[in-house]
């Protein structure tokens, strides 16, 4: 696959958003808010950064990815389907009893999913295990993860963060999707997790702060992470929950709610307009 850059990445990410929102709408359940906030990072990973082979999803030297905030599966599934791991039509059967796309990522049945996740706080530990295995086996693949800024209230995240530093896992890079919102409201009100930069630095990680919707910044951060030796990298990306759908943006209420037909029509029109705009300019 030819790597995508700039506007091509942005357009792909909006297509991912449209697929994710449509799938959640059809399923009448799912998590659009966080899927939209991490869609750019996911798109950058799978269409630029990561070395994967959709024809051989279990290729042992592939780069690994763990969606620690597993409820954002709609975005991950859209990216995997568009990258060629399974048919794009399957996305319309999200959460359906007769399909393989469960509510949260399931590595047993979904090609391209490297770890089953969904119970918050657990994914990053498994990513540490993958990165540690690479070091142990002398392999050069890298491991990526995306965690939520609400998710990092889980104590296990900090156990994982500590251990990644202990083993100098410079082959591990974790995005923290800092959209500032979680189910019960703002992270500030529910459980303040900031200052995340100081926390990760204190735990001996390399920290990069970026705008999570700016592809130049995302790719630069990934390149910096690759060059960083001796410690893992945390990319703290400021994002907008619900990014790209006006009425979902910055609304905690759209964390885990599906748009109805009328709402989906508006969302679709807005996202298609974005895609068109990126095609024309």
């Amino acid at each position, binding site marked *: 696959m030819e790597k995508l850059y700039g506007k091509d990445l942005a357009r792909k990410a909006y297509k991912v958003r449209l697929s994710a929102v449509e799938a959640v709408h059809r399923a009448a359940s799912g998590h659009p808010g966080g899927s939209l906030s991490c869609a750019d990072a996911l798109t950058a990973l799978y269409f630029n950064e990561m070395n994967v082979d959709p024809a051989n999803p279990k290729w*042992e030297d592939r780069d*690994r990815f*763990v969606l620690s905030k597993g409820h954002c599966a709609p975005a991950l599934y859209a990216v995997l389907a568009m990258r060629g791991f399974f048919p794009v039509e399957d996305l319309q059967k999200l959460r359906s009893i007769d399909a393989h796309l469960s509510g949260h990522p*399931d*590595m*047993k049945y979904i090609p391209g999913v*490297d*770890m*089953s996740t*969904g*119970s918050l*706080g*657990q*994914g*990053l*530990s*498994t*990513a*540490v*295990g*993958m*990165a*540690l*295995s*690479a070091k*142990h*086996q002398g392999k050069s693949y890298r491991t990526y993860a995306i965690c939520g800024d609400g998710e990092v209230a889980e*104590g*296990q995240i900090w*156990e*994982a963060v*500590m*251990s990644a530093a*202990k*083993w100098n896992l410079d082959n591990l890079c974790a995005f923290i999707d800092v959209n500032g919102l979680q189910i019960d409201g703002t992270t500030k009100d529910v459980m303040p997790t900031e200052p995340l930069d100081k926390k990760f630095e204190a735990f001996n990680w390399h920290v990069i702060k970026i705008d999570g919707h700016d592809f130049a910044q995302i790719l630069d951060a990934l390149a910096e992470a690759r060059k960083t030796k001796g410690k893992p990298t945390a990319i703290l990306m400021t994002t907008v929950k619900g990014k790209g759908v006006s009425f979902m943006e910055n609304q905690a209420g759209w964390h885990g709610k599906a748009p109805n037909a009328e709402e989906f029509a508006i969302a679709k029109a807005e996202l298609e307009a974005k895609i068109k705009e990126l095609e024309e300019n």
Partner: protein
Amino acid sequence: MAGKIATRAAYGKALVDLAEKYPELVVLDADLAQATQTKLFAAACPARFFDCGIAENNMMGIAAGMSTCGLKPFTNTFAMFAAGRSYEQIRNSIAYPHLNVKVVGSHGGISVGEDGATHQCTEDLALMRQIPGMMVVCPCDGNEMTQAVEALLNYEGPAYLRLARSATEIFTDELEGYRFELGKGVTVADGSAVTIIATGIMVAMARKARELLAAEGISVRVIDMHTIKPLDTELVLKAARETGAVVTSEEASVLGGLGGAVAEYLAENCPVPVVRHGVNDTFGRSGTAAAVLEHFGLTPEALADKCRRAVAMKP
């Protein structure tokens, strides 16, 4: 007979002995390498030993991730902090994706002794048995433990292995025709009036109870059920049909473990009297291992009483 050894010590030695034959074997511990005996492996193969510190949940996740990369991780901590604290990590990160991780719970049951109730896990067998696709193994002596470790290295999938703290007599090496196979119970001694189906350190006590009852003319069959899940239902059914009464015995809660498994199966397939011997829905307490076992009635004498009761209930 090769004397006495704790199953945890036999386990620690087995890891070292098998290290060369199984290069994918990696061992994780959570700051209990002295107690769990993984210190032996750490000394022999330092590059394959990962101390995760006092953070069991993270250890389970790391093991899950490692198993997806072709390694064969064994995680180690006390039964309480494996099956107890990390129940959900084992369920969701290891068992749900059916990963090849062996979760080892040392110091299982009440014979931990002096540390008391916070460290005496009586629920582990029931908790682990609840998880779909999880194998649950509790060897009865050092010889069986050694064989179980190699069998688990050759088994592809999640499993829980329970180790005991205290030294107990080795006897399976002298049993005629003894052969260890995961999921297959072992008939340790034959009998006709009642069958004791025991696991872990209770198998040796079952042999003593059998001797006590022989003096009264009660013929007792003893089965070593080292694998609690999947249960050897064929052997259980045969025992129920041939002896007409069953007593289960485990160093664990009578709720949901071996006793639960046998009672559930027999209630639906061959309803004979089933009496469960174990810890009666209560927390443990401090004391020497022997004193604690005595206090909670985990003795050959108390087990013999359960057998008398089962025989009396026969129609």
